[in-house]
């Protein structure tokens, strides 16, 4: 594998890992896998693009706007589409359809508001997407920063789960009613998770925008790769998601030099499906214990 392929794989892999982590943040206390997550990432990129290019906000200001906007949308989604379904029954999977519906609504509304053309987004100050030739490796400073930021974010999220609030989240995932008895409010946790999961998705969109451009096409492709990373790395496991994200990014980058884009996705799909057949709980998971 040549070094340029490695760089491409690591850069895209970082994005997949971030999407997977945003899935996990939502999933852990609620056991809901948000089918609109890809569209939340996309929306983050769009809001950021508008805030920075149209409104002329500085990078950090536009970032804040994007995070808050997408976080609030995540919260609204939880209130409208998830909480009412879970209120009927904890084992109800109606949220599969309701979150899918939310994804349709977001992607079509954004398509109407922003139009189909991709918007170019500048990287933050001091960084550049101008490719450098550094000892024969084609890389730019933004790519390096993205890889580092991804590592830092994942480790930071892992630390959060070790705090008291983080443990409450894990306890709720394990047993909602028992958590309730321990004075944890699952409804509040679930709202917070959707807000934070949404904000994290928004952040992922902002980080992806300088590389992939901001466009409505961002949603479906990141949704699938992000899901693949989350599933391969075992749902709920953030370090697993990080490693799996890189595995998928690298596989894809290697595939790109051999296959045309249409086949590339098919190859990843077949690989992930095969892996799930052999190891249904992913590479780093343990089987859930059945409860009666």
């Amino acid at each position, binding site marked *: 594998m040549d070094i340029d392929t490695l760089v491409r794989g690591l850069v895209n892999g970082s994005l997949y890992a971030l999407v997977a982590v945003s899935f996990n943040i939502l999933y852990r206390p609620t056991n809901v896998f948000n089918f609109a997550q890809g569209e939340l990432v996309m929306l983050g990129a769009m809001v950021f693009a508008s805030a920075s290019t149209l409104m002329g906000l500085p990078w950090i200001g536009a970032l804040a706007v994007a995070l808050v906007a997408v976080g609030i949308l995540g919260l609204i989604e939880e209130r409208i589409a998830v909480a009412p379904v879970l209120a009927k029954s904890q084992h109800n999977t109606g949220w599969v359809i309701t979150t899918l519906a*939310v994804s349709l609504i977001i992607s079509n509304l954004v398509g109407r508001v922003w139009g189909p053309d991709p918007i170019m987004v500048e990287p933050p100050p001091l960084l550049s997407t101008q490719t450098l030739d550094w000892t024969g490796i084609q890389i730019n400073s933004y790519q390096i920063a993205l890889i580092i930021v991804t590592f830092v974010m994942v480790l930071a999220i892992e630390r959060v789960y070790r705090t008291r609030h983080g443990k409450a989240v894990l306890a709720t995932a394990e047993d909602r009613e028992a958590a309730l008895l321990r004075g944890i409010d699952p409804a509040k946790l679930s709202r917070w998770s959707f807000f934070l999961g949404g904000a994290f998705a928004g952040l992922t969109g902002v980080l992806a925008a300088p590389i992939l451009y901001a466009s409505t096409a961002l949603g479906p492709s990141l949704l699938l790769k992000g899901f*693949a990373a989350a599933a391969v790395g075992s749902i709920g496991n953030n370090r697993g998601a990080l490693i799996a994200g890189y595995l998928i990014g690298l596989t894809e980058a290697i595939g790109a030099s051999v296959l045309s884009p249409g086949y590339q996705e098919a190859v990843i*799909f077949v690989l992930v499906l095969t892996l799930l057949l052999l190891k249904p709980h992913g590479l780093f998971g343990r089987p859930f214990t059945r409860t009666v």
Partner: protein
Amino acid sequence: MASTAPSPTRMRYLPVVAQLAFAAAALSVPFFLSGGSYLLYVATQLGVYVVAAIGLNLLAGYVGQVSLGHAAFLAIGAYATALLTVDHQWSFWAAAVVGIVLSAGLGVLMALPSFRLTTWYFAFITLAFALVFEKMIVEWRGLTKGFAGVIGVPPPQFFGFELGQKALYWLVAGTAIVCFLIVRNMVKSRFGRGFVAVRDTPAAALAAGASPQRLKMLGFIVAAAFAGIAGAFFAVQKTVVTPDDFTADFSIFFLLTVVLGGLGTLWGPVFGALVFFLIPELLHGLESWRMLVYGCILLVLMLFAPQGLVGALNAGVRRLTARPRGAPGAAAATSAAAPVAHPPIAGAALAVEGLKKRFGGVAALDDVAVRAGPGTCCAIVGPNGSGKTTLLNVVGGFYERDEGTVQIDGRETRGMSAQAVAGLGLGRTFQTPRLLNDLSIVDNVLLGAFTRERAWLPEIVLRLPRARREAAALRAEALGYLDFVGIADRAEDLASEVPHGQQRLVEIARALMGGARLLMLDEPAAGLSMVELDKLEQLISRIRDLGATVVIVEHHLDLVASIASHVIVLDRGRVLAAGAPSEVFADPAVQRAYMGERAVQGAPAS
């Protein structure tokens, strides 16, 4: 038993004739309306959608596995038919069979990972499959001819005659009716009860000996095969097959059709497709807003009418026809007065030795031994968290044990799945009743007989005499068990409509229906009134005296003292005491575990 529904034989034929006449009349409508061949074309298309929607409804509505990529399965049927007939001059029928088999085969492949995972994995995998497939059709030009698609699909031939537009319409309509009947017969049989159990309470399916994997697989195969059939007709009806026909939007369209009509209702997909067929006409000016509108409709329906149009209609009819009920006391009095006779049960002995089970660092069971013989009742008591339910779950095969032996009727159960253990004659009830709320009480009891039915799927689908006879006999038996537990009057009510105490009785009837020779009851007395408690005590005594082995986990010590001949006290996973109830309850260690140190010290020594 005498007061059940009117004899089914007399009732059967008249409605069938009426239904056939109505169906023929309804299907002839396109011929009488103006619009001519275009209308016929559209009606044929509607029939194609109905076939696919019926399959998706079986999968998503009954088995509870949502396919978000149904268009891909249609595409396989359509492309296989188009390519084989156009490029290789196959006959339509042979090509369609290949398409159906391919579609069903891929359905199985998508389904395999979801066997050991939660439901939404399947949804995601099908979604991913549809998106990838959409691109593959374009990319794999050598096979699919890329964007241009396959053109000039010839109409089907029938003994040398080319089927015209009208014949094709009748063929599709006939196929739709056959598909509808297949699903109807399946849903009304043990498979339907199994599907709903897999969807709502997998634990109940396992306890009844039904394999969730096999049932899911059946649902996947039927849904994918129906999509393949629809795809084959799609190809000959449109005569052109292009990648644009099978986008992700098309999958959403099918999902919406089924949700709109009513998930898990027989007529839902038919109504949904009919209504949906009108919506594009209404939305004509809003073409570009279509997907947004779809999304909004999906969301609103799932939140406010999860059972769609047909579900809302059914609920309305139920409310109108709800019959007034006599005072519950009267019914209880009659059944208590005359206990129903029941043939003896050949009880299965339970022998547990040295059982250990750890959850992480916690020893839930530590060296536990239980012995219970036929015709006796063994009670397991202990404070909350002492491992009682874990013990039942390990014996029932719901949890794997770490060490020890469990023998049912002398057979070691190590490594057996829950449904295999159920097959040995173990019946159980759950701490919170696990009933299928959307089914009637008698259907809930019939779920227990899942593994006892001998009729094969084809017999059930075709309603052959053996399947019909067997279904009738089992139904009569189920009503007998309801009589036995004293709630025969509620047989036709929905499980969600009966009070908690009676739900427990339904669970016991279900276990007996499954041929339980070893009955494990998990806190049967919890939440019962005094009257109900007396009835429960009598019922358990009767079952025990018939010869069954009864193991009961219970906090209600009066009940335990009066029915159990042997008591085992668990405390933090260990056996604290075992023996006759009077000895065990007098043991100071037991009193300490139950009531605390001070209570024992304060009490006068006896």
